[in-house]
């Protein structure tokens, strides 16, 4: 189905002839089958590239008037439109890529949707500032991550991304523009909440189009310029050792891993504390799939990293480093931990961009398929309870040869010094297996059933009656807006 010419012309009048296209080869970029789940999005009927909020508003109004579904995108990492007979367009926001304000004193930055991590992060580093960067990678949209409540490696001393989202400008599905919080009174970008009840609870990536957002900033204690040496793909990014150190400790049990995280949270030390994926680590830090197999088959990562805690200490002075290191060792020794093999630690010492900006999701797919559908966010103990039950459903997939034999390939990251945590299971499968696309679906289904059996917190729309019937309210809200 193609866009009627009259409607096409309306869009064209908004953005100009150069920034709208319904040519099939242009649209090919938006309907490529996703390698990880085999899903082929329906082709849009056109792609439109608005240049500012006013153009977005005009487009949204046209869409609303004619019942046209639209999908705002920046990076295409998870583009996907449900197959539908309805007219649909992609709003590519890539032209809206300005950094509008960097406020160093009050520590926020205002960006448009197409500002990428690889653009913003270094601008802020120059100024001794930083913000949480999820592992989606350098080329992805900053704003989209924050709208999607992204997770990242440094949550232990910070928080999930949504806490860092400040004021924003939202073109609502009705075509009205809402600027919330302190923007309501032209008071600036610093507060997303109020006046009165906070409308920030409505923020969802897929609802209307967000055209500007302010992101909160923290201090960055590292060098002002990314200290990368070498060449692709094996850069070395090392930070000054007197104020930046990474340690990896292994423990006899997952309970000890949990307890270490709890204690490090109480002690408020560490920029990052996490249990990382061990198979994913092998994928990330090897150059090719073949290299991965060499590393994986050596057994080193399984031996060293299946019950391990990564600790990244970032301090302002060597004295502070000595203090944090001292406390860290106090805790590790109390819990019976020991350092992992030096060669494993060296990998992280040479790749400290792991804590700054890293192409995680891209590398994860090096082996073919593989995704992490199983995401939970709750407390540390609850996350470890979930971890204990993973073998219940996961091992059968391993035994059948459907997924890589990596039963401990989950990560747990504490949030806000242990006030919460995030757990994520990542599995690898060969997408060339017959019915390979059923693997992630089946895994997610079994994981969901496991959650139900054990009453893990994992709300999903098809189980909403067990979660305070949230879909009832969500539907009302969606319909109202």
């Amino acid at each position, binding site marked *: 189905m193609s866009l009627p010419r009259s409607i096409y012309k309306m869009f064209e009048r908004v953005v100009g002839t150069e920034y709208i296209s319904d040519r099939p080869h242009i649209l090919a970029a938006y309907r490529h089958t996703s390698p990880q789940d085999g899903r082929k999005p329906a082709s849009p009927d056109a792609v439109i590239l608005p240049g500012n909020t006013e153009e977005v508003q005009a487009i949204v109004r046209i869409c609303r008037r004619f019942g046209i579904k639209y999908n705002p995108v920046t990076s295409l990492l998870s583009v996907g439109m449900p197959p539908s007979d309805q007219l649909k367009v992609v709003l590519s926001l890539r032209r809206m890529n300005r950094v509008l304000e960097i406020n160093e*004193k*009050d*520590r*926020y930055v205002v960006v448009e949707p197409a500002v990428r991590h690889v653009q913003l992060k270094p601008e802020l580093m120059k100024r001794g500032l930083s913000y949480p960067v999820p592992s989606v990678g350098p080329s992805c949209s900053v704003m989209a991550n924050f709208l999607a409540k992204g997770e990242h490696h440094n949550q232990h001393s*910070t*928080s*999930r991304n*949504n806490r*860092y989202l*400040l004021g924003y400008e939202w073109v*609502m599905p009705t075509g*009205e523009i*809402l*600027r919330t*919080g*302190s923007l*309501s*009174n032209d*008071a*600036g970008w*610093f*507060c997303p*909440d*109020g*006046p*009165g*009840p*906070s*409308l*920030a*609870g*409505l923020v*969802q990536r897929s609802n209307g189009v967000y055209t500007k957002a302010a992101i909160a900033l*923290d*201090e960055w204690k590292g060098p002002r310029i990314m200290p990368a040496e070498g060449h692709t793909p094996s850069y070395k990014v090392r930070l000054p050792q007197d104020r930046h150190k990474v340690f990896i400790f292994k423990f006899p049990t997952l309970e000890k891993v949990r307890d270490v995280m709890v204690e490090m949270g109480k*002690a*408020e030390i560490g920029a990052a504390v996490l249990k990382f994926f061990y198979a994913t680590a092998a994928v990330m830090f090897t150059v090719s799939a073949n290299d991965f197999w060499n590393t994986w088959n050596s057994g080193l990562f399984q031996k060293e990293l299946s019950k391990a805690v990564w600790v990244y200490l970032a301090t302002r*002075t060597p*004295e502070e480093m000595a*203090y944090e290191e*001292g406390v860290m060792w106090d805790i590790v020794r109390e819990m019976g931990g020991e350092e992992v093999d030096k060669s494993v630690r060296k990998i992280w010492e040479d790749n400290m961009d792991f804590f700054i900006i890293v192409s995680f999701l891209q590398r994860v797919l090096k082996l073919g398929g593989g995704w992490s559908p199983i995401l939970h*966010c*709750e*407390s540390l103990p*609850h996350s470890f309870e979930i971890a204990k039950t993973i073998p219940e459903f996961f091992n059968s997939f391993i035994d059948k040869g459907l997924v890589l034999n990596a039963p401990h390939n989950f990560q747990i990251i504490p949030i*806000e010094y*242990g*006030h*919460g945590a995030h757990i994520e299971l990542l599995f690898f499968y060969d997408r060339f297996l017959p019915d390979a696309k059923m693997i992630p679906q089946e895994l997610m289904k079994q994981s969901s059933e496991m959650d139900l059996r054990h*009453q893990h*917190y994992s709300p999903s729309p098809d189980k*909403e*009656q*067990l*979660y*305070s*019937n*949230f879909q009832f309210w*969500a539907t009302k*809200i969606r319909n109202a807006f």
Partner: protein
Amino acid sequence: MNFDRKDRTTRRDFVKHVAVGATTLVSAGPSGLIPADPNPAMPGNGQHEQDNVIEAASNFRELVGRVVKEKNIVSDPAVLEGYSRDCSFVAASMPLLLIRPETREEVQQVVRIANRSRMPLVPVSSGPPRFHGDTVPSQGEVVLDLARMNHVINIDTVNRCATIETGVTYGQLCAELKRSGLRLNIPLLPRSSKSVVASRLEREPTLIPKYQFDYIDPLLTLEVIYGTGDDFRTGSASGPGALETLKADKVNPWGPGSIDYCKFLSGAQGTMGLVTWAATKLEVSPSLQKIYFVPIKEADDLAAPLIKILRQRVADECLALNNVNLAAILAKNWPADYEEMKKSLPPWTIIVCVSGYARRPEERVSIYEKYLKDICADLGLRSQSILPGAEGKENAVLELLSGPWEKEPYWKLRHGGSCHDIFFLTTLSKVSSYIRILKKTAVKCRYQGEIGGYIQPMVQGRGCHCEFNLPCDQSDSKELAEVQRFFMDASKTLMSNGAFFSRPYGPWADPAYGRFTEGVNALRKLKNIFDPNNILNPGKLCF
């Protein structure tokens, strides 16, 4: 949306829909929904309407009497009088009735009855004195005082959070926590009778900005009874299943799903729903704590040290008080000590606490106090462990910052029995400009009274709560008028200069929402979902 109320006598049957272990939805008919009533009942004027009001009240009372203990339903005017007014400029108005539920089930039943009867409710959860006008009835509402729901449900020392009913006060909880090695991140000297949940819901600023990651923090999950009578649990308290069988620790405030329901309840003054319990963060009690004072002569010099201290996360408690407020807090004998201290204290004092925790506390304190010293030295300031102008009071300050105000009268009321607070949010870099604006406005209004000043950085220092306290003698009408004039003028001037009144109580509501058309429309859409008959605190905010 029509918020006018008309007489309603329609009866409604309802069918309770209960899912396994789930929260309940109140539904009517096959649609499962109570349709939004465009013409909810409202007590009006005139004898006929007055008779209808009495009949409605009587019906309501009878229905409520079936679900709430008789002793908890009060119509004694002497008692109701206490709820008819507070210290704010909001006009006094007698409530129709006072109900004091003891359980969440009672709250839910009352709301359902109120919804059916279109009886407006005003929720209260803190003891007096109250200051902001949000709990003052305006249309003959029934006051629902949740103070008797005061159970501390759980103190979780591993996840560092407390789950408490809405009636739990700072006095109660702080005392209980002393035994646990944990502490609350509390506001500045809250009243002992202040509800912790209400304080969190209203986004009151807390003393330790480094623990706050957004303006809703440290509120976690909660249970709410919406104006429809439906109950709902937010975040990871939502399920799966019943509250009693939840395995989750109720610490994820977001969702369930992609919408953050808890945010709609924040700053809402009870207009979206009544929270029956909430989980809130706790922090580790320091094993070693040192307090420092940075005297500030000019308000222009306030921001720079605070910006750096917060950016580097040097401090636990971090705030600034002017001499008026600090003297009011510390003075032993009133008014002699107060007047003397007010003169001897510097115009402003930044107060910073540096803490050590369980392991190597001295090391930590030593490192962070050096950071503090260096920050101050770079700016030509001095951090000192002696409180200039009130030497010897240092420990008293430290003690005061650790808990609620226990004595009578409340420190804000020491001057004359009443106090009107102007407070708003801004950024640290703009604080001094607002202090200047306030001073200019005081001159313009010929305001001669005291102005207490309190600057509280929030959310890691990215925002700042600015508060100016105008004490007065409520019984002195001349003084009151002067304060009111200044209060209104200053509020208007500050607002028009970009001060963000994020909690628009009383007279701030109209100007705060005046330019926020799309926001008001959006809020009303939400209101129409969660309280379609506008029975919860009607007339507040933009409802």
